[in-house]
């Protein structure tokens, strides 16, 4: 027992050292988390304060005089018309997600499971297209939309987002599709299933996780896009939230009551996606990093 007591004492000293080390570790890690939280927190608090308070004292003093209001949100949504821009963002984003996903999935199936001359070379070309920066396409596409009379509608930006989403969509889905069991597909072919039937009844149901990750990635990419909307959507009444936000910034540069509320409206959909689909979200973003 006595010997055991000695052992306990020495391990107590060791544990004290280890404990101090762990203390420092916790302080550093929690500190990092705080640094990453504070900027968003500041914006959230600011968006809920009356304009007078925002100008008079910093958001970090809010606990001293906790006065909150939703007036800033009401003002940007109604007088600044952001409710309309929110809808516009949806009108742009939903088709710009569905189109590249469905067209891309069909093509990926073709590249993965159908044989046709030049297939692998064409696929290589698709891969090469992933690195083309959108800047090289903006002016020619804009001219094309003007010629076709598409500048006043969303068709132009849908097509452009689709075309730019395709190389990555095909790359990701094709790599997923080729890993599906060959036996399953060959058996279905034996049974006389058509290619379209195999695609719909075997490939797509087995690829839901990959398709979901890609959908989340493409949805956020389009929702958060500023550059393409800035150039392809020129009617103010049709512009998405990102463009409305940049207009708001140039008009009310330092009026953070409006800017912060507007930013939160812009962030709310991505945040919902983040919290509800985190698994697909992380997968989609990390895979999409190559884009």
């Amino acid at each position, binding site marked *: 027992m006595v010997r055991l007591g000695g052992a306990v004492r020495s391990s107590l000293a060791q544990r004290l050292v280890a404990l101090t080390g762990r203390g420092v570790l916790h302080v550093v890690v929690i500190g990092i*988390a705080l640094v990453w939280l504070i900027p968003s927190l500041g914006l959230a608090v600011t968006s809920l304060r009356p304009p007078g308070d925002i100008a008079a004292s910093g958001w970090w003093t809010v606990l001293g005089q906790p006065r909150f209001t939703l007036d800033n949100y009401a003002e940007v949504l109604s007088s600044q018309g952001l409710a309309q821009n929110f809808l516009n963002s949806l009108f742009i984003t939903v088709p710009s997600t569905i189109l590249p996903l469905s067209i891309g999935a069909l093509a990926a199936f073709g590249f993965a499971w159908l044989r046709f001359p030049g297939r692998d070379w064409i696929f290589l070309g698709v891969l090469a297209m992933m690195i083309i920066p959108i*800047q090289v396409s*903006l002016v020619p*596409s804009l*001219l094309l939309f003007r010629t076709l009379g598409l500048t006043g509608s969303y068709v132009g930006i849908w097509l452009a987002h689709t075309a730019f989403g395709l190389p990555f969509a095909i790359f990701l889905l094709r790599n997923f599709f080729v890993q599906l069991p060959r036996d399953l597909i060959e058996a279905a072919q034996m049974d006389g299933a058509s290619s379209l039937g195999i695609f719909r009844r075997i490939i797509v149901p087995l690829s839901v996780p990959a398709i979901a990750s890609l959908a989340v990635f493409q949805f956020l990419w389009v929702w958060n896009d500023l550059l393409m909307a800035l150039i392809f959507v020129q009617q103010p009444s049709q512009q998405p939230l*990102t463009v409305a936000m940049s207009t708001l910034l140039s008009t009310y540069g330092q009026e*953070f009551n409006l800017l912060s509320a507007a930013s939160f409206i812009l962030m709310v959909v*991505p945040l919902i996606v983040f919290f509800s689909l985190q698994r697909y*979200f992380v997968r989609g973003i990390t895979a999409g990093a190559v884009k």
Partner: protein
Amino acid sequence: MRRRVRRLQGFAFTAPALVLMTVFLVAPMLFTIRLSLDTGRGFQLREFIGLDNFVRLLTRDRLFLDLSDFPPSGAVFNNLLWIFLYVGLCVGLGLLIAVLADRVRYESIVKSIVFLPQAISATAVGVIWLLIYAPNARVGLLNAGLGAVGVDPVSWIGSRDTVNYAIIVAAVWAGTGLAVVVFSAAIKSIPTDIIEAARVDGAGPFQTFRHITLPLISLPVSVITITLIIGVIKVFDIVYIMSRGGPNGASRVIAYSFFEETFQAGKVGYGAAVAVLMVLLIVPIVALNIRRFRAGETVR
């Protein structure tokens, strides 16, 4: 007969995608290359001027590349600054956070917090940080902090000397999460007995990191580094939102120059030359990436 049908099917499945990509990617790129050899005034081919646009961009455009002063300035130099600072900080902080978070029980919460800005558009990130940088010390947290230690407020975005650093810090806040998640996954895939063996042999945490962890995750580190560098060459949104490339063009980056010259100044051919330069910068980086990746695979 059956085989012929199969062939046609292959084309049928891929055709919609191939047509769209040809119309909006391949053909536009060719037209942009042609446009870069033209004045392009009025958004059309006007006058063939050879390589004049490129020569002017690289030698006589002080906002694009100015080597006459020290330190050099201009969009190209700013992009270089972005590569060193933004990529360096994202990778460095990404490693640090991935390693440290690995040792605490609330790891997933910390990683979620750092990853969260990945969901937010650069537009919103810009506003979040404009609030931090607000020149008024009663609004901006950074100037309030400086005021507490007796330093006068700084106009972070309004001054040529600080604007680039200010925007880069905001971008690092938004971009580090990606590195953290990728590095963290790589660290977790290292077998624990290797780390354990190093510890038994008396290696401290720093030695273990330097000699065991880092070499084993060098492939993801280089992939993320190159991915971030390519992202830097395309960076536009956050600069547009935070500073519009100002003051007086001090925070322009290459993609911003493209936008400014093409759509603000109407020098379409000149802007096209900037776009072509972007492609020329990205291609060798990607080629290098593929080579390294292949090399990594053969070693394994």
